[in-house]
C-alpha cells in the first residue's frame, strides 16, 4: 500500500491496514527497543505503547517525515523513557567511547617506518574460502554474529541493526537518529570490523579444532 493511502486508511480506522503495518514493523521495533531496554518483555511493552501512540496520533501526523521514521521515532522516545524508569541510564547517555582510530590492530601491519612496505600486512588474513558453506550459514555462526552485535556499543549496534540486518537506507537512519552520514558510516564500519574479527577468530578456532 502506498504511504499516503496507508495514512488515510489508518485515519479512517481501517483494521486491515493497521494489521499490515504491524506485520511489517513489529519485529524490527522489538529488536530496536532491545538496544535500549534489557529484556523482551520490556521491549514488547514499549512496542505496544508505540502502536497505541501511532493510532492515537495518526490524525495529527504531519508527514514531515515518512510514516516509518515517525513510528520509529516514537518507539525510540518510549524506549528511552522506559530505560530511564528502569534505571538504565548508561544506555541513555549513548556515548560511544570507542574512539580507537583503527578497526584492525596496528600489530597486524608493518610499522610506518618500514623501509619497503610501511603499513602492509605482516601476514595476510586467512581466507575463509575453505570454510564449508553449510558451516558459514550455520545457526552457530549466526549465533556468534548475534552475540558480537549484542556486545557492541549501543550506537554501533543500532546503526548496524537498522542498516545491515533490517535494510534501512542511510538517509532514513540519519533522519531517525539525527546523526550525519559520516558519523553513521564510522559507526557501521567499526561494527562490521568487529563482527568480521569475531567470525575470523571463530573460523580459525574451528579449523584448528579447538
Amino acid at each position, binding site marked *: 500500500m502506498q504511504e499516503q493511502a496507508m495514512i488515510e486508511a489508518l485515519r479512517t480506522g481501517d483494521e486491515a491496514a*493497521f*494489521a499490515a503495518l504491524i506485520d511489517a514493523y513489529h*519485529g524490527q521495533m*522489538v529488536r530496536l527497543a532491545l538496544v535500549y531496554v534489557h529484556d523482551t518483555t520490556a521491549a514488547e511493552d514499549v512496542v505496544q505503547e508505540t502502536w497505541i501512540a501511532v493510532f492515537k496520533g495518526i490524525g495529527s501526523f504531519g508527514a514531515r517525515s515518512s510514516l516509518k521514521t515517525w513510528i520509529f521515532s516514537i518507539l525510540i522516545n518510549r524506549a528511552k523513557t522506559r530505560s530511564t524508569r528502569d534505571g538504565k541510564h548508561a544506555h541513555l547517555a549513548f556515548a560511544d567511547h570507542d574512539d580507537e582510530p583503527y578497526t584492525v590492530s596496528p600489530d597486524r601491519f608493518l610499522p610506518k617506518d618500514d623501509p619497503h612496505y610501511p603499513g602492509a600486512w605482516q601476514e595476510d588474513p586467512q581466507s575463509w574460502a575453505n570454510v564449508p558453506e553449510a558451516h558459514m*550459514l550455520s545457526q552457530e555462526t*549466526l549465533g556468534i554474529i*548475534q552475540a558480537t552485535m549484542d556486545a557492541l556499543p549501543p550506537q554501533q549496534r543500532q546503526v548496524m541493526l537498522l542498516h545491515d540486518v533490517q535494510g534501512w537506507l542511510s538517509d532514513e537512519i540519519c533522519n531517525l537518529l539525527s546523526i550525519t552520514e559520516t558519523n553513521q558510516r564510522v559507526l557501521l*564500519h567499526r561494527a562490521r570490523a568487529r563482527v568480521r574479527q569475531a567470525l575470523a577468530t571463530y573460523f580459525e578456532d574451528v579449523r584448528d579444532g579447538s
Partner: protein
Amino acid sequence: MDHELSCQEFVELITEYLEGALTADNRTRFEMHVHHCEGCATYVDQMRQTIALMGKLTEGHISEQAKANVLRAFADWKREGH
C-alpha cells in the same frame, strides 16, 4: 591522499567504498590497491561476507498474541468513538 594506499589505510576505507562515499580519486586508489594486494582482497571479501551474513539474522517476528493485543486496543479505541 596523494600517495598509494597502505593496507592499513585501505581497511579503514572499506565501508566508505561499499557505501559509494569515496571521491573518484580515492575510489581509483582503492581499486588499484585491492587489484594488487591479496591480503586486502581477502579482507574486503570477508567484510562483504560479514554484511551478507548480517542480512540472514532474523528481523524479529511478532507473536500472534502480541498482534492480537495491539489490534484489540485499536478496536477498543475506535469503539470509544474516535
